[in-house]
């Protein structure tokens, strides 16, 4: 079922007779289009988010939309789903012009959207979630619970999911929650399904399930518009790819006529090779030594008796699936989680379990979830940058705004953070620049070992490249860098040494040369592998 990597098998792809892959906006109109956004413009004040974009979604196909952050993907999707109104242009549904003043109106026309952040109620059951806001009534105007349960079950069955409709959504793993959300949207007779980065929180196994579901949808003639940052993933599932850059459509092609390098080039105007900037530097003494570290959990420890070290000048990558205990390990290292075992930084042993103590010891963490754990959204760029090092900025116990600004401006320049000014609210920045603010805060504590948990999650390729470059520079300066990533290409491209985690344990410790994709994937599932072939 899941063989979209060979596009010849998919009927739509084989029908496409477009001669040139990069035939921007000139694809023949022979294929049926369910939805056309015609010459859409959108401006906020004087800022043009979209400049005359004509986007076509082919019927019964997976239409991938890619572009760096700020390219206008989300704005376009908001317009197509009725959440925003275009400044100019029109929307054609099956050739007829339509208007969507509200998301409800778009839904009435069969257009549903699944956002990056799930919009489920964790405290309600699966069935209640699927029918939230449109509960089924019986004659006495009471909710017909049994009917809802039955229909919820069949909606999930359409996705080949055997989830009990009475389960609380909060008790489900995140992948299943995602599928419940899809079931909710699909149960409203949706013909066009927009998915905004649906895989960002999913493990590889969960992504496989999602892609099977998308294959089924394709057979049911549902049109999918799929936004993603993950190159390998959308190459697997997509039939067509449309690339936006700076609010304009730069390329459009059927997927089998493209390759990864071409897509990246269209997105950023340079090739993917420049993404990874790592050339191993000379390693020195052990800076971080971890011995027998465990984080208790139920039913099994979240981190289970882990020992490893990181040397000066070394970038160590931790690869593993979601739930393997990578984030928990990072949080234990920085003192956010209770743990056993010993941690030594540059020969000094960590004694207290507080973050402040670990910072003083020379550890600093850039967390996985920037919004939840990294930023203080109500504060300025300056305040966020300096938050960990306020005590170094006082004179006679008082902070000097002028001095703060000077220090913050220096940091902004060093890391090339794009800001309107250091006093701008931090939420005004793009994801990549917010990430750099948090990185800047960590660097200001003068760490010996920098911990990065999914440092490139949800940021565009340009910002990724810069984060990689900074990591390399830091290692060259003699810092130890320990980073977690779910993307194979990233781990393999950036690490001098790769640790693989599975079920709380380290299952492989491979130098750069020996780390093949196969070895890493096998190690990341090693506990199950060992069970199957003893």
């Amino acid at each position: 079922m899941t063989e979209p990597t060979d596009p010849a098998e998919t009927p739509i792809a084989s029908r496409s007779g477009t001669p040139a892959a990069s035939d921007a906006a000139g694809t023949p109109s022979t294929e049926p289009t369910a939805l056309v956004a015609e010459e859409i413009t959108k401006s906020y004040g004087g800022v043009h988010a979209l400049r005359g974009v004509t986007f076509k979604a082919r019927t019964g196909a997976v239409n991938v939309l890619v572009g760096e952050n700020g390219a206008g993907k989300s704005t376009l999707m908001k317009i197509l789903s009725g959440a925003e109104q275009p400044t100019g242009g029109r929307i054609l549904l099956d050739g007829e012009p339509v208007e969507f003043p509200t998301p409800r109106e778009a839904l009435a026309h069969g257009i549903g959207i699944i956002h990056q952040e799930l919009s489920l109620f964790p405290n309600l059951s699966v069935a209640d979630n699927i029918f939230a806001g449109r509960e089924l009534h019986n004659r006495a105007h009471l909710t017909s619970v049994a009917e809802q349960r039955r229909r919820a079950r069949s909606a999930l069955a359409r996705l080949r999911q055997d989830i009990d409709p009475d389960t609380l959504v909060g008790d489900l793993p995140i992948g299943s929650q995602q599928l419940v959300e899809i079931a909710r949207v699909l149960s409203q007779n949706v013909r066009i399904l927009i998915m905004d980065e649906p895989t960002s929180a999913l493990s590889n196994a969960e992504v496989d399930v999602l892609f099977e579901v998308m294959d089924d949808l394709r057979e049911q003639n549902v049109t999918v518009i799929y936004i993603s940052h993950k190159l390998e993933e959308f190459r697997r599932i997509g039939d067509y790819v449309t690339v936006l850059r700076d609010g304009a459509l730069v390329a459009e092609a059927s997927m089998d006529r493209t390759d990864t390098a071409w897509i990246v080039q269209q997105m950023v105007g340079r090739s993917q090779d420049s993404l990874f900037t790592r050339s191993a530097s000379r390693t020195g003494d052990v800076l971080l030594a971890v011995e027998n570290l465990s984080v208790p959990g139920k039913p099994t420890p979240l981190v289970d008796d882990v020992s490893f070290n990181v040397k000066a000048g070394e970038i160590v990558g931790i690869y593993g699936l979601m739930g393997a205990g990578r984030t928990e390990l990072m949080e234990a290292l920085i003192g956010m989680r209770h743990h056993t075992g010993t941690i030594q930084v540059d020969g000094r042993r960590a004694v207290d379990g507080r973050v402040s103590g670990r910072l003083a010891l020379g550890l600093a963490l850039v967390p996985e979830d920037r919004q939840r754990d990294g930023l203080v959204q109500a504060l300025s760029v300056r305040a966020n940058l300096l938050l960990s090092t306020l005590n170094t900025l006082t004179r006679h116990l008082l902070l000097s705004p002028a001095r703060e600004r000077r220090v913050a401006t220096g940091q902004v320049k060093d890391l090339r953070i794009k800001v309107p000014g250091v006093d701008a609210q931090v939420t005004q920045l793009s994801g990549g620049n917010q990430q750099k603010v948090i990185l800047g805060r960590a660097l200001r504590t003068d760490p010996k070992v920098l911990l990065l948990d999914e440092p490139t999650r949800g940021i565009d390729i340009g910002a990724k490249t810069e984060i990689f470059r900074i990591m390399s520079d830091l290692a060259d300066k003699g810092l130890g860098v320990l980073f977690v990533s779910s993307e194979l290409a990233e781990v393999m491209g950036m690490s001098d040494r790769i640790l693989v985690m599975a079920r709380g344990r380290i299952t492989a410790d491979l130098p750069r040369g020996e780390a093949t994709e196969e070895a890493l994937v096998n190690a990341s599932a090693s506990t199950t592998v060992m069970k199957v072939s003893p």
Partner: protein
Amino acid sequence: MSTSTEPEAKGSAAAEPAAPADRVGSGTRLAMILLQGRTLIVLVALVIMFSLISSDYLTTSNLLLMSKHVSITALLAIGVTFVILTGGIDLSVGSISGLAGMISGGLLYEGLKLPGGDTVWFSTVMVIVIGILIGAAVGAINGLLVTKLKVAPFIATLGVLYAARGLADLRSKGGTFPNLAGTPARHNTGFNVLGGKSWIGVPVAIWIMIVVAALAIIVTTRTPFGRRVYAVGGNERAAELAGIRTSRIKIAVYIISGACAALAGLILTSELGAAYPDTATTYELNAIAAAVLGGTALAGGKGSIIGTLVGAFVIGFLSDGLVLVGVSSFWQLVVKGTVIVLAVVLEQTQERVKTRMTT
């Protein structure tokens, strides 16, 4: 200017005045300025309105009298603002005022009776210090309940509200300490200075408010502690991860709130010349209202001491104005409630205009 959301907001407006101006119409900008200064505008409007109705309103003596009333609300509200900035709430401040008043009043009236039958007397300064320390100690209990036992701030301080009031009653078995004049031999005269005396024509209570407010402004805007208070309220996990000892910060703000409440309680007791256990009952609501009127977000992370001060003045000047023009006390409550809700509605309008300006 009165109700800017946080110290940084002013800086950003000054640093890049041109950027938003290009994109937004002057109408929106005017609306923004009016909304930001809304509480101050309301205050000025109140003064103008009442002075038109009554010629007694805008006189030096009346303004001083009203400001003296305001000083109590303001002291409570400044303390409460610290707590609200961290995302907490302190319902116990009225009771802490009452308890501190009773403890200090008792020490002046009958001294500290030791089990052996002896009585220890403290000097006036000592009595005041002890009263404030009592407030700080009760605040510390609030803080420990919230941080160590993880009790929700609303519940923890509600419990302390009852318990502290009960302790105040217990101190005198429900009675009043009628005479706080003290005797020169015991060095405990002069307690009436706090609430009854003036310095260069201005009541001492107002001076105390000015000093406390100035300190609070410096602490919130210019010290690492103040910045951490905002960070804890804005995003506690991020603050923790940035190395901030969030529990310490939270305990500290409840201590500040308790100490401010005790100071207010001492001024009230001194003004009255007698300590009775019901002092400052329900004053916590005025204090929270003043903070909210001044633009402090109950969710934490946003607000300012200056905003709270203006809020306290609006509440005080409104109440006294209504009394002066002879509005019934029942209508006073209705008007007060309306003003508070209206303030929050305006705050949300301001947030919307702000979003429109920045996107």
